[in-house]
């Protein structure tokens, strides 16, 4: 037990037992699969047509917005170039599905149907999102499935910022699927009910800018040093079945010990950037006197 808690030596044992457990999980998930398949196969023509129309409209709206987004993205890169700050690497994604399997009821965990056999570049600590917002990150990668921790687990903390003004904070899970708490915000912090909290990207585990939660309750007690701020996750933690695994650094895997460092090619890019910064700084120092 100590080995498992402190080190990663027993992970191979865990993976080999997981291979035994996977058929059971598949079996438990099977009725849900059949249900999905049946509801897909037996929908009436009318529903399909209605779906088609709404999807078409939605698609039109989204593509129109995307036209502007391309322009804004280009502008953003240009401005960042002008500021000489680091470029944001494009994110790679992979669609996965949750298995409807119950685990420890007192941990906010889920099992997904992607494992190290078919997708060898998923990694422990990888974030995943659904269509609405951030859901959590992977904790154990096993051959045919993986387990993931949701952002609402009491042991999970997510670096966030208020979208309105960039105020940075940490969102901790509470164990309830509809609440996150934001501790250590002073009583006079600029945060309001209804504020959207997005990931700040600090800590380098989660990519920057994904919506995470909406503030629903603020209790200010003057006798306490910090305000009590509660937020509701925007991701549909208890309903989503299709999720997206995200690679924040493009192709490279982050270093497990320090996610801000990449393990492969991107590392050199980062160091060259740091070197160029170092080069720039002495120049400024020379100019100053």
């Amino acid at each position: 037990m100590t080995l498992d808690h402190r080190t990663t030596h027993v992970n191979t044992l865990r993976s080999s037992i997981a291979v035994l457990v996977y058929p059971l999980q598949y079996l438990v998930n099977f009725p849900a699969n059949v249900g999905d398949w049946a509801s897909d196969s037996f929908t009436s023509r009318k529903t399909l047509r209605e779906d088609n129309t709404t999807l078409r409209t939605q698609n039109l709206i989204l593509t129109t917005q995307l036209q502007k987004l391309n322009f804004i993205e280009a502008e953003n890169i240009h401005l960042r170039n002008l500021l000489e700050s680091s470029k944001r690497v494009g994110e790679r994604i992979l669609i996965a599905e949750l298995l409807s399997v119950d685990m420890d009821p007192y941990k906010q965990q889920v099992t997904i149907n992607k494992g190290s056999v078919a997708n060898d570049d998923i990694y422990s600590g990888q974030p995943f999102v659904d269509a609405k917002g951030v859901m959590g990150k992977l904790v154990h990668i096993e051959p045919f499935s993986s387990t993931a921790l949701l952002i609402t687990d009491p042991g999970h903390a997510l670096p966030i910022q208020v979208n309105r003004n960039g105020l940075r904070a940490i969102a901790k899970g509470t164990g309830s699927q509809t609440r996150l708490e934001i501790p250590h915000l002073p009583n006079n912090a600029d945060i309001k009910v209804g504020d959207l909290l997005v990931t700040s990207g600090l800590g380098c585990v989660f990519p920057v800018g994904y919506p995470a939660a909406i503030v629903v309750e603020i209790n200010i007690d003057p006798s306490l040093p910090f305000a009590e701020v509660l937020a509701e996750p925007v991701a549909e933690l208890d309903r989503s079945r299709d999720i997206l695994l995200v690679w924040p650094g493009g192709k490279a895997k982050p270093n497990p010990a320090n996610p801000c460092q990449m393990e492969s090619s991107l590392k050199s890019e980062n160091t060259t950037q740091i070197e160029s910064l170092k080069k720039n700084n002495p120049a400024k120092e020379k100019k100053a006197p």
Partner: protein
Amino acid sequence: MQGGNVILLSFIVAFILSMIPLPQILQTVRPEFVTIVLIYWCIAIPNRVGVGIGWIVGLVVDVSTDALLGQHALTLALIAYLAIKLHQRIRIFPIWQQALTILVLMMFQGTITLWIKGMLGDAPALSVFILPAFSTALFWPVAYLLMRQIRRYYQIN
């Protein structure tokens, strides 16, 4: 050595029952099916199912619930030991007294789990262990009668 497959199958069914998705409220009172099956076999055929089986089953539970590897292995091995130690007494108890014994065993398991989780720093509320302990004890008579039928039908001893 007959009926090995039946024993294996009973554990598989217990695993499936403990993994079937339930609403959040029912999840917290879900009986510990795997522990019940283990205790039953320990009481009924202590010469075949014991601490070793308990340990192996516990490892599988650990992986399927993504707990710390060894946590359930330890508790289930201890439960198996106690069940074997007490099996002659438990066998002659009326069924409600058996259920009370199960309650005590489950509380014991809960205490060990609470210790382990406490050492890791994520000790959950006490109700976490008390609710499943009671539901497991309440479920015991059904499980006992059912499994006794199965055991007699397949003549496992």
